[in-house]
């Protein structure tokens, strides 16, 4: 399993890790910074992680996926630091013999990562900044 917090996400590195003659299917989800939230222009974002716990929780999710589906490889990579719109900030990659497992496991991993991995996003607008999702 490739579990990482990084400055920059490298898609080729993840594919090289996941690709295997035993796998016929690789599914990637890449989350990127959008240039607006509820119609307001986002100038940039800042991602902060509780590093040790984030890695522990990412690894735990990858292990759950490896047990639930017949997978060849799993990559869970999140970027931290300041990011501009258009930048990849999260990559989930899953390889498996057949495509169903790679699609399902990839979807599971991004959904769960968003629920439980301790990483926080602050959006910077022209006139203010907001920790996303903090308040009801």
């Amino acid at each position, binding site marked *: 399993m490739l579990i990482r917090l990084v400055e920059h996400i490298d898609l080729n590195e993840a594919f090289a890790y996941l690709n295997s003659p035993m796998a016929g299917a690789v599914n990637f989800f890449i989350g990127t910074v959008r240039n607006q939230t509820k119609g307001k222009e986002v100038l940039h974002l800042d991602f902060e992680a*509780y590093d040790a716990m984030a890695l522990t929780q990412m690894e735990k999710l990858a292990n759950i996926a490896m047990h639930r589906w017949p997978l060849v490889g799993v990559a869970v990579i999140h970027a931290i630091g300041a990011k501009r719109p258009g930048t990849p900030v999260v990559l989930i990659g899953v390889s498996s013999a057949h495509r169903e497992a790679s699609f399902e496991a990839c979807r599971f991993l991004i959904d769960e990562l968003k629920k439980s991995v301790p*990483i*926080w996003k602050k959006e910077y607008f022209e006139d203010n900044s907001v920790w996303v999702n*903090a308040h009801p």
Partner: protein
Amino acid sequence: MNVLLFGITRDITGQSRLTVPADAGINTVAGLKDWLGVHYPGFKQLKSLAIAVDNEYANDEDAIGPAQEIALIPPVSGG
């Protein structure tokens, strides 16, 4: 007992870690939550506030002490 802070909890407290005095007598997650609510009313405005103990989400009844790594986890927004 030290408590690590992240995201909006740093903005609310103006600190990157809190020190809970030993004489507060806190030894459970629930006790820590009560103490935080009294000292930092801003936490009550959050959608949620979890406590992590040694890199795992903890339950209210879990015991905590100064030997553990304790952190406040406001609503996450990664991905």
